[in-house]
């Protein structure tokens, strides 16, 4: 683990003097290695290390910590600071129905997460949701949302795969108004951030429905591509938040740091399982520890 590697670097330094240029170089090399192994993007690692170097250099070695622990503390604190506040809630401050749009790459967990969020809002805040699938492409996508919506105890708009997603979205909004629902969730089809037509489709839907939240659902095991993906979705849609899915595995989750770094948008929730209860508010300190490994 990083702590062991750093203790190795500093084994001659215990309890004396300060963290010097030389032993900082070696220590930072280990931190760089840990972050890259955790899938943090190379450019993000470089900028992060530069920051940590400033923070840590010249610090007096504390008696209560080994130098290795001290470096970890600086790195950990810096990670947490970048990751942002814990538990930023969904923004629901508008006339109902508030529109929440779920976007992201194929298979990232949008449909499942939509139902999880709706269930959470119902159970904890007594907010009623209407779910609408705009996925006219994937076989049985609408059936999937209908099933998980039913499981979550919320209504699902009956869309059809031969319709245009823009029309379905507008009809669903009408239905949510008539039905008096607090929130309308739009579950969109997975798409590549470089598919211009499909990204345009999202822009069109945004323009038509003016969602208060546009949430990027990203897989915790995403590698270096996380930067490119997040940047594209953010540039075209100005996303309002991120949900990191499948954090119940052993992926280090460096994508979280990359995404946060390149978009500046808050990570609001973590997907923690396949069932509808598998959703937790974002914990920056827990994710930071996991990335460091």
């Amino acid at each position, binding site marked *: 683990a990083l702590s062991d590697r750093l203790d190795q670097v500093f084994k001659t330094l215990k309890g004396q003097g300060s963290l010097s240029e030389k032993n900082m170089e070696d220590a930072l090399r280990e931190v760089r290695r840990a972050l890259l192994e955790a899938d943090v993007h190379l450019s993000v690692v470089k900028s992060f290390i530069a920051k940590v170097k400033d923070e840590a250099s010249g610090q007096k070695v504390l008696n209560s910590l080994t130098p290795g622990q001290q470096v970890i503390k600086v790195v950990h604190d810096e990670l947490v600071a970048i990751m942002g506040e814990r538990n930023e809630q969904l923004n629901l401050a508008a006339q109902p129905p508030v529109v929440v749009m779920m976007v992201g790459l*194929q298979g990232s967990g949008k449909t499942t997460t939509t139902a999880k969020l709706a269930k959470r809002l119902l159970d904890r805040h007594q907010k009623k949701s209407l779910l609408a699938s705009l996925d006219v492409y994937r*076989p*049985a996508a609408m059936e*999937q949302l209908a099933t*998980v919506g039913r499981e979550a105890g919320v209504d699902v708009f009956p869309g059809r795969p031969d319709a245009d997603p823009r029309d379905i979205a507008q009809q669903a909004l009408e239905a949510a108004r008539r039905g008096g629902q607090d929130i309308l969730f739009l579950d969109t089809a997975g798409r*590549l951030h470089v598919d211009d037509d499909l990204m345009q489709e999202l822009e069109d839907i945004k323009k038509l429905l003016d969602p208060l939240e546009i949430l990027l659902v990203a897989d915790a095991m*995403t*590698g*270096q591509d996380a930067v490119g993906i997040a940047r594209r979705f953010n540039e075209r849609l100005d996303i309002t938040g991120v949900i990191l899915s499948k954090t119940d*595995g052993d992926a280090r989750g460096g994508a979280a740091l990359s995404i946060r770094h390149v978009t500046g948008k808050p990570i609001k929730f973590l997907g923690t399982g396949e069932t509808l209860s598998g959703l937790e508010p974002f914990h920056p300190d827990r994710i930071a520890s996991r990335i460091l490994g």
Partner: protein
Amino acid sequence: LIKGRRIDEELFEDLEGLLITSDFGLETSVAIIEEVRQRHHREMIKQPEMLRQLLRQVVLERLQSSQVDPQPWPEKPGVILVVGVNGVGKTTTIGKLAHYYRGQGQSVMLAAGDTFRAAAVEQLRLWGQRCDCPVIAQQQGSDSASVIYDAHNAAMSRGFDLLIADTAGRLHTKVNLMEELKKINRVLGRQGSRTTHEVWLVLDATTGQNAHSQVKRFHDDLGVTGLIITKLDGTAKGGVVVGLTQAFNLPIRFIGVGEAMEDLRPFDPEQFVEGFF
């Protein structure tokens, strides 16, 4: 990146950065660049273009060492068990594989072994319709191993050439879910005189270094016989597979390059390497 530059330490560093940002992973990137550095010395390479060729060659050799030509199915029906973590593209890939083998004149049956996820059976049924392949299924919540067992019996008695079994996505760290797959493996292994079936692990090209943990666990638990890399039509290059093929000596059977039935290609190491450089 290489054009018009002199071959120096800075160039090697930039090349290493290129590998890292293509998900090769730190360890593999360093090892590849070290090999390039050594061979460029020995072979006295002066032109940058020759360096690009050398880099391509070094990566290609690592991929080719684990590639073996696919063999005809040892028995009838051939059986492919498709496994992998959640959302990587197993069900879609099965639809594509069915189309591919039908195109070669084989009769294909599908087993709806994902008895857990919402609308998983419906999704596979629709794929079955597209290539005119029967889908054996039971209702949601039934036992996956029993569905696959029934499908295997049906494929044998009806003389099908190939049975492809879908399974629910699962994270490799979930012991009870991996036990379910081991049970399916045993069930397939004991039927008739069959002792060999393919176990193909599907990996998403956007996955980073966690692919190592996925392959290790699935391989330790099941004996993986092939890999499929999906979503290579995106911007992710799937560089992690270079380190994987080295570490586990597993062949890559196919790649997925889109969401339609035809978007499947047999793995070609040369084309794959082209995608990087």
